[in-house]
């Protein structure tokens, strides 16, 4: 018998609007969503559909105007700032399109800056960072460099290491390959696929079909709600049938 999947993040009647020049603009309009543990979920949609807004609301990076966000069953919607910060450090990892490594720190220091919030033993932290850097193929020499001294792909892989340092329940990635060239994009996506296969839940926002192919669940946003959803198998490599299924889905969505 197939085991029932556990919900890791859920949104209930989620609403988010922004006030611009006195006009209220609704981005998320009463959205319901369940994200399951171990899934690689991709959020797609046209520009302005509210993909990033939804992701940051789910991760506690921003507050919704209405509805609830439940993380592992716990309502985080009304958490105070500091409680939300502690929640993020324990349960969330972030990977950004602009990478946002701390410029005044080396790659290793960047990883440790995140890790030291939950682990105070420096030796353990270093060992953990080394393992993760090895996993994303960043050498010890590279670990001692600053973000300004390395390529975008290397920086983004270091960003993934930083996101994984606290063993988060979910890694949130906002167009992580948006600023990378094709080769670097592949390398970064390979890392995501590998950690997902090891059980890491991922929620990723993207415009890119190739990136979306790595996911086992694609959510399409339109007019502030989930307009459609597509499920795939876990990614194991390039697959024509998988690509066809995704193309068909996106065509239906008006992509």
């Amino acid at each position, binding site marked *: 018998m197939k085991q029932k999947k556990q919900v890791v993040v859920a949104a209930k009647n989620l609403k988010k609007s922004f006030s611009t020049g006195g006009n209220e603009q609704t981005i998320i309009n009463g959205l319901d969503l369940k994200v399951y543990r171990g899934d690689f979920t991709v959020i797609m949609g046209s520009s302005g559909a509210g993909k990033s807004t939804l992701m940051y609301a789910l991760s506690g990076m921003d507050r919704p105007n209405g509805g609830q966000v439940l993380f592992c069953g716990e309502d985080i919607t009304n958490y105070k700032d500091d409680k939300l*910060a502690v929640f*993020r450090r324990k349960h969330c990892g972030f990977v950004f399109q602009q990478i946002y490594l*701390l410029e005044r720190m080396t790659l290793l220091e960047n990883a440790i800056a995140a890790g030291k919030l939950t682990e105070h033993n420096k030796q353990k932290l270093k060992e953990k960072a080394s393992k993760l850097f090895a996993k994303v193929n960043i050498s010890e020499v590279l670990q001692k460099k600053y973000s300004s001294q390395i390529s975008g792909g290397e920086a983004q892989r270091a960003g993934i290491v930083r996101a994984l340092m606290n063993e988060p329940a979910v890694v949130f990635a906002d167009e992580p390959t948006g600023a990378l060239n094709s080769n670097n994009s592949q390398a970064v996506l390979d890392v995501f696929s590998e950690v997902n296969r090891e059980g890491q839940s991922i929620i990723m926002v993207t415009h890119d079909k190739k990136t979306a192919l790595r996911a086992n669940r694609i959510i399409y946003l339109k007019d502030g709600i989930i307009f459609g959803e597509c499920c795939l198998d876990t990614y194991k490599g390039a697959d024509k049938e998988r690509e066809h299924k995704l193309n068909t889905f996106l065509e239906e969505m008006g992509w």
Partner: protein
Amino acid sequence: MKKQKGMLPFGIILGMAAMILNLALVLVFQVSSGYDKKFQELNGANINLILPKEQVTEKIREKLEQHKEIVQAEYVEGILTQATVKEFRGSDFTMNTVFYHMNETRSMNQLEVLQEREKAAQSIYLPLYVAEFGEYQTGESITYEIGNASYKYPIVGVVQEMQFGNFSTNMMGAYLSKEAYEKLLEANAGNRVYSIALKLKENQDSKQVQSELFKMFREENVSVLYGVCDSENKQGRTMVCNLLIAIFMGFVAIVVFVTLFLAKFRIQNCISQEMADMGVRKALGYTSNMIITSIIMPYMVVGAIASVNGILLSYLLLPTIAHLLGLQAGFFLHITFSLSALGITLAVLLGLVFVFTYFAARKIRKLQPIYAIRGNAECKKAALWQNLLLFFSLGILTVLVSFAGTLFYNVMVKPDNFMKALSDETASVVLRVKDADKIKEALERQKETVKVLKLSTEKVKIKSEEINALVCEDFQQLDNDICYQGRYPEKEDEIALGSAFAQEDGYQLGDVMELHLDGITQKYKIVGYIQSVNQKGELCAVTIEGMKRLYEDYQAANLYVYLQKGTDAGRWMEKQEKTYPEEIFNSFNQEELSEKTKEMYSSLIQEAILCILVVTILISLLILYVIIKSILVSRREEFGIYKALGYTNGQLIGKLAGELLPVSVVAIGLFSLAGTIYMRVIYQFIFSMAGAMKNFCQAPIVLLLGSGTGFLAVTYLISLWLALPLKKISAYQLIKE
């Protein structure tokens, strides 16, 4: 919009600098001239003398009126008493007081009535100095104890006068109604005196004429009970005032320096942030000069508006400050608008703003548009400037804090340190006696007496200049060591010279110089230098034997009596006057005067310390505001990342404030430790401006480090407070922006 916001702190800081600079300049320009103006208004005499009435004979009058330099002599009758004022600032205070009839006609030394109530019989007008320091109001009454009688007068007015000095001369005036004057005269007929006011021909050296008159009085056996010329009077009255202005100017220099440094940082920072805009403009075809002008102009316009506002604000504060300073000199200082102060303030501040903005902006010439748009090269420089600004500003502010701390220590905890530098020798009681040798031994035998010293001030001449000579039997026994280099004279042909002669006339130790008195000239070897604030270093010291070489029959006129601790100097003095009525001409309770002076300094210094601390905290607040604000703007993204990683507000606020801590600790620590050296220099400089070369003030390292630690704690708390806005911004907003 963003630009205008950035200009606000710059405008506030520059406005503050303009306010303080203009304030200081107006005081420098107007205190001395204000005194002179009041002196002219009240037709002050060039020389004021007080002589026993019966000794002012027709012959003396003739001699005065026939003196070639005197154009006018005016005689006003008065009663000279040693009066104890009851409840003077809460305790009794004895001072030599000349009581006059208020309605006596005066063409010189006129009185300006400041406050007046309905006249009454048996009433009094007090001079401003006594009324202000004694905390007397019109409508209240004042009680004098003269001899064994007590006189209580309702105060019907306060007058401003330019005849007497301040408390240090121990001679004050008081002005009675006709009935009160006549009643006092009945009981003190033997103390009738003439106040003689002398007007000299224009540009005459009043000191020189006074010296000639003293010689004439000696020849005619006339006792001069009090004599002072206009220059000595002005010097005495404005001494504390000048000292305060000197402290104030030093303070101004520090504030203006910090403010400009801060302005430079502000400009540098704004330019760094606007570098991308500049690059875009360059790309569009603007010339470097056009861009530089567009950068400089807003700063110049805001600078001009802020400076003018600061200057206007200074005129709101000036009356209060001028009032406090004027009271030290015993007159109301009326501040008028000063075009020179305005011109200098605007020229200095706007000139510096122009130089700073130009040097900060001119680098745009060398910058290619694409690098300007990227703007990365500026980050490291901005951080360096930030650290330099913080280091030097906090360092200089530490000097202020250390100064306030040591001032507190030397004035409030160990007041003798301060008093020794500013006052002459202070015994418990000074007796003016007929025969010093005869009475000295008897006084020494008393159990209350610690020591009795023959110490007098006599007039002698160096070249043609008349100065005071301290004549003492044994200078080693003086409590207040005023010799700052070399030693005191021990032999009859030795002399110690005042600091003014050492500095201006170039007399060296070991040189032989001449003293003159009444046609006799003697040579003396210079063995040391001495100081005196009251006489601005224009004095000398010789032994009694040394004085006798100039005046064979010289006898010490004053005995300085030092009493055991706990002895009531006033009572002891009264007892001696009764025991030796024939031997003691006059006595003076120096202990009491010293206590009153200490009180006066204490209250002034307390206000000064409070003022320094408030301004220091305000400047720290401004500096830290500018720095933290610039960190929050330039590193917004970084703090956003930290928030995304899960750092709490508390952690980030602590981190931001903590980043400033190493530079703050080093700056405050180094400048606090260096205080052991520079505090000595600062005090030396301040006292030397008043004529004191020897510095008794201490700067214990524990005190300096304690003040520094306190200051560090305050700056850290301010930093934490200023970093609080981090709380209001969510991580998502930070990243989005």
